Every structure is written in structure tokens, then in C-alpha cells.
């Protein structure tokens, strides 16, 4: 029995929330749903539950045999996983809850400023931002969007400013997509308006059954010359931002980008393109300001691109709605792909982060599984957080540990064996 409400306000709030939640629920056939669910995924151990309350005493000898068999089975599984280079680490990283909270709700992207501080962008009606300093665990109010916006794409410019482009207005009743952009200066904490893109590049609502975060999210990549390339989202063309002039120019694409984008060591930008049939890649060359199609990947990887220290690119992740695809490593110089074992490939979840030592860490927000990719051995290693974190930002600390800050204001300190800075 739930504890009774303690104050008149809580009782009134309960009535309001119950009233708010009392929507008309769509009428569905329960028996059709039950049949579909049970037919689609037959249980492997149906009937097991019925054995539990009975508590039939198991003879000692039989119990010992079962224990020995289970032990041998566990050893065999552990050995095979170890040999495959993918095994579960026992350590569970400690969780640290931030002791301070932003001065107001934020809820937008979380952007690193490059000096350890982290900017929490607002996604609400006011568009307030808050600056977090992990060294002191404090938040400072830090400016507001001139035009409140949610679902934006961001990039840290070469001079330390933050570009926030596109998104949509979070207004009640009349939300519309935005092609405009603003720039945040961390020295002044002020947002200023800059040019507008050719299209809004806003995250699209996607198609049910697909992982829309992966398929339709826009991406911003900073080029070596300081310009920023914005691809993906609902716009068919790419946009190129020049911080010097504060203007955008539109660039035609070789294919429809849906996936991820990353800058290569030679300065070009690799962008994945997905369709219902295949995965492709296109390459943007800053020298010519043009896209060209690249070689066709052998697998249907739809997840993250990570630039490895040797210049190669890791294609990792697979959509839960599709069949498990293998991870791949692409060599831009030889224009060749190397396919890795599919069972080691983490699900295409966000976020993924490249560590300073070249490894790549993937955090599964649904299960809390942390997967670590070792570029030297092309192998994966896994551990698990006690409770899956919310979407957030990963930053390396001075003592070599890694702090993952979730947008629900929880922080995780994870020791991934990095050298202290």
C-alpha cells in the first residue's frame, strides 16, 4: 500500500496528474496482441515459473551433479569468450551523483568546452544554458538562446566558441523548425546570432521500428580550416559554416546522409549514407568543397564512426530493429574495409567517445553495458554499469579516470585505465 499523501499540495498534484493522464486509450484486441507476442518470440523456458512455488526437494547427489555441470558450462563459456577477446569485467564502476544541480532545467545537448568545463544547453521555452565545472562540482547560469530551440546540432569552433544550429522552437502549440544558428562565447557567456542554414537539419521523427537517433540525427564536423560541415537530419543538402564571416553555404551531396560523420586525418569528412537496401559512404573534400561517393562497405553498419589513432575508421553498432551487423575498420588510404566479428559489435547506441589513448568507449543507455574497443588488437571488452545512465557527456579527468555526466544530473566515475594527465 502506498504511503498517503502528506500535504494538501501533494494531494492536489496527484489529482491533477491523474486527470492529465486520463487519456482515451486506443482500443486494441488483447487476444490479438497476446497471440502476436507469443508467436513472434516463443519462450525457451515456458513452464519454469510453475516449478518455483512447488519447491520439490532435489536429492543431494543430483544437486551436486547439476552444480558440477553448471560449473563446467560456465567455465566453457568464459573460456570461449576470453578466446574471442570479448569478456565481461567484474568491476562495476562507482556512481557519483552530482551534488549541485543547474539553476534551472536544461535538457538539451551537453558540450565540452575543451578545458574540462561542460556546457548544458537548454531545450525548454526559456533556452537557458548552464556551465558545469567538474573540478568544483558547481553550475553557473550562462546565457540563454536568443531564440529558444531544441534538438539542435552543435560544434565547438576553433576559437572555443560553440555553434548551435537548427532545431525547432519548443513553443506550446506552434513548434516550427529553425534554419537559424547562434554562437556561444564561453568568455562572456553570451549567445549571438549568426547566419542561417539552407535547411533546418532538424532531427526527424523517423519511421517506427527503426532506431531514429541513428538514422536521422544531424551531425556537425569541424574542418581543419575551422569551417563546420553540417549534414543529416531532414535537409537533403549539406551546409558549410564559415566562422570568419558568420555565414553558411549549401553543398550538394553524393548520397543521402543517415548515420554518422567524422573527419579523417587527411582533412576529408566521411559520412555514412543509408537506405533500405544498403550502406554507402560519401567523402567531403574541403579543397574542392564537394562530396564524392566512396567504396561500398561489406556490412550494413549503421552506428558510430570513430577515428582511430592510426587514421583508420571504426564502424561500430547495429540497429536493434535489424539483424546484428559486424563492426568494420576502414582504411582511407587503401580504401579497404576489414570486417570484425559481429558478436563483439555493440548495439548502435549513443553515446560513443574516443579516449585520448585511442580506445573507443560505447555506453549502452538501455542496458548500462560499457564496451571498450582496443584499436591495437581490434578487439572489444565489456563491463556494466549498475544502472543504465541517461544520455550525457563523457570527459576525461586529470587523474586518468573518466566522468560520464548524464543529463539527469547523475555522474559516473569510471576507471578505464587511462594514464593520469
Amino acid at each position, binding site marked *: 500500500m*502506498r*504511503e498517503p499523501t502528506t*500535504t494538501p*499540495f*501533494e494531494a492536489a*498534484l*496527484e489529482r*491533477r*496528474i*491523474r*486527470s*492529465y*493522464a*486520463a*487519456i*482515451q*486509450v*486506443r482500443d486494441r484486441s*488483447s*487476444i490479438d*496482441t*497476446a497471440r502476436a*507476442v*507469443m508467436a*513472434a*518470440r516463443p*519462450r525457451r*523456458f*515456458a*513452464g*519454469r*515459473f*510453475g516449478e*518455483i512455488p512447488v519447491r520439490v526437494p532435489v536429492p543431494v547427489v543430483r544437486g551436486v551433479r547439476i552444480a558440477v555441470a553448471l560449473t563446467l558450462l560456465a567455465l566453457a563459456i568464459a573460456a570461449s569468450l576470453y578466446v574471442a577477446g570479448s569478456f565481461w569485467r567484474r568491476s562495476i564502476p562507482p556512481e557519483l551523483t552530482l551534488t549541485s544541480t543547474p539553476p534551472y*532545467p536544461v*535538457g538539451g545537448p551537453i558540450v565540452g568546452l575543451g578545458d574540462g568545463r561542460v556546457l548544458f544547453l537548454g531545450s*525548454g*521555452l526559456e533556452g537557458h544554458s548552464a556551465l558545469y565545472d567538474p573540478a568544483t562540482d558547481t553550475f553557473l547560469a550562462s546565457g540563454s538562446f536568443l531564440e529558444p530551440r*531544441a*534538438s539542435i546540432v552543435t560544434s565547438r569552433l576553433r576559437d572555443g566558441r560553440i555553434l548551435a544550429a537548427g532545431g*525547432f522552437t*519548443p*513553443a*506550446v*502549440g*506552434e*513548434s516550427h523548425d529553425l534554419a537559424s544558428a547562434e554562437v556561444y562565447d564561453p568568455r562572456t557567456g553570451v549567445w549571438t546570432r549568426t547566419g542561417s542554414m539552407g535547411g533546418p537539419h532538424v*532531427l526527424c*521523427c*523517423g519511421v*517506427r521500428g527503426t*532506431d*531514429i*537517433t541513428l538514422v536521422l*540525427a544531424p551531425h556537425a564536423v569541424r574542418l581543419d580550416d575551422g569551417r563546420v560541415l553540417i549534414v543529416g537530419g531532414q535537409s537533403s543538402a549539406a551546409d558549410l559554416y564559415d566562422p570568419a564571416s558568420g555565414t553558411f553555404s549549401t553543398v550538394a551531396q553524393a548520397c543521402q546522409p543517415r548515420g554518422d560523420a567524422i573527419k579523417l586525418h587527411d582533412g576529408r569528412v566521411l559520412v555514412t549514407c543509408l537506405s533500405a537496401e544498403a550502406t554507402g559512404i560519401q567523402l567531403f573534400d574541403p579543397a574542392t568543397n564537394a562530396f564524392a561517393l566512396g567504396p561500398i562497405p561489406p556490412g550494413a553498419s549503421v552506428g558510430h564512426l570513430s577515428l582511430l589513432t592510426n587514421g583508420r575508421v571504426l564502424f561500430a553498432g547495429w540497429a536493434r530493429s535489424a539483424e546484428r551487423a559486424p563492426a568494420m575498420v576502414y582504411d582511407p588510404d587503401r580504401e579497404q574495409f576489414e570486417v570484425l566479428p559481429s558478436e563483439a559489435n555493440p548495439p548502435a547506441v549513443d553515446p560513443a567517445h574516443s579516449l585520448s589513448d585511442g580506445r573507443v568507449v560505447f555506453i549502452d*543507455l538501455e542496458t548500462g553495458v560499457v564496451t571498450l574497443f582496443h584499436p591495437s588488437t581490434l578487439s572489444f571488452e565489456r563491463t556494466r554499469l*549498475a*544502472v543504465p545512465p*541517461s544520455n550525457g557527456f563523457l570527459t576525461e579527468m586529470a587523474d586518468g579516470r573518466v566522468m560520464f555526466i548524464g543529463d*539527469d544530473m547523475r555522474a559516473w566515475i569510471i576507471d578505464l585505465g587511462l594514464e593520469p594527465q
Partner: protein
Amino acid sequence: MSLTTATTERAASPAALVRAALEGDEASFALIIDRHRVSMTRVAYVVCGDADLADEAVQSAWPIVWQRLSTLREPERLGPWLVSIAVNEARQLVRRRNRRSLVEIAVATHESARAPDPGASVADIDLARCLSRLSPSDRSLLALRYVAGLDSTELGRGLGMSASGTRRRLARLLARLREELRDA
């Protein structure tokens, strides 16, 4: 529990329904769905603020329920267990949509979902605004507490927290909502 018993005895206990469903009785699983889908959808609605998304969350919860049903050690807790799964699914959907147009959709679908009541609509818009400013996990806490009626222990189980931690978090949340609804 046979199929016949499950389908004819509308007052079948949760434990009996779970046991029969695990034995492959479609009618028992359908009865579980029938009994809980409304509360699951309404809880999911508070989390995601979108009637269609809430419906989608509940539909995607059923395969998970079916796969994990044998892990339910206390079948009397079937209801809290089901709404917790629905809440998690709603949070995942919200996360995947990157919290797109929560307020907009919440107000529009809510008004169209029931009879017009100007006074209630204004109050709902204020509440929808406040909810949209909360994190999905805070909205989950409110939904599980006030719509599903879970106690602190059950809330803790559903959200992966201790009962005392849940109470502290709820107290902070109430203080914040008191301020925001006063200003609204």
C-alpha cells in the same frame, strides 16, 4: 491453471494468470494485457506526453513482458512490474526522439483525447509545461507514484534506487513543482 479456467474466471489472481501464461495459455496472457494496458498507457503518457508514443511504448513493452515473465518472483506485484516496464519503454522512446516537441504534442493530443473543458485544459497546459521541463526520470517518478500508485519500495525497484533515496528525490521534486505551478 487451465485455459478454460483462466478465460472464464475474470477474478483470476495475478499469480494464476502468470502461471497459466507461462504454460502457453494465450487467453491468460490476453487477460493480463486487458487488465493492465490502460494503466500502463496512462503512466507512459505522463512520461512521454504523447498519446501515440505512449501507445507505442506499451505495445513495445509486451514482448519484453513475455520474455521476462518467468523472472517475476512475486506475481502479486505483477501490476507494479508491468508499469515499470512501460515507463522504461516510454523513457527509451523519448530519448530516441530527443525529447522532440514534448509540450506541443502533449497539449494537442490531450485536448483531442477527451471532452473539452476550458478550465481543465488551462490547468493541464500548465502541468504539461512543468512536466516538459522535468527530466524523463523525474516524470517517471511522478507517473509511478501518482498514476500507478506505487509506494517508495516499489518505486525504488522500478527506478533502481533505494526507498529512502526515492522519498528524498520525491520531496525535492514536490518542492520544485510547488514553485513552478505557483508561477504558472
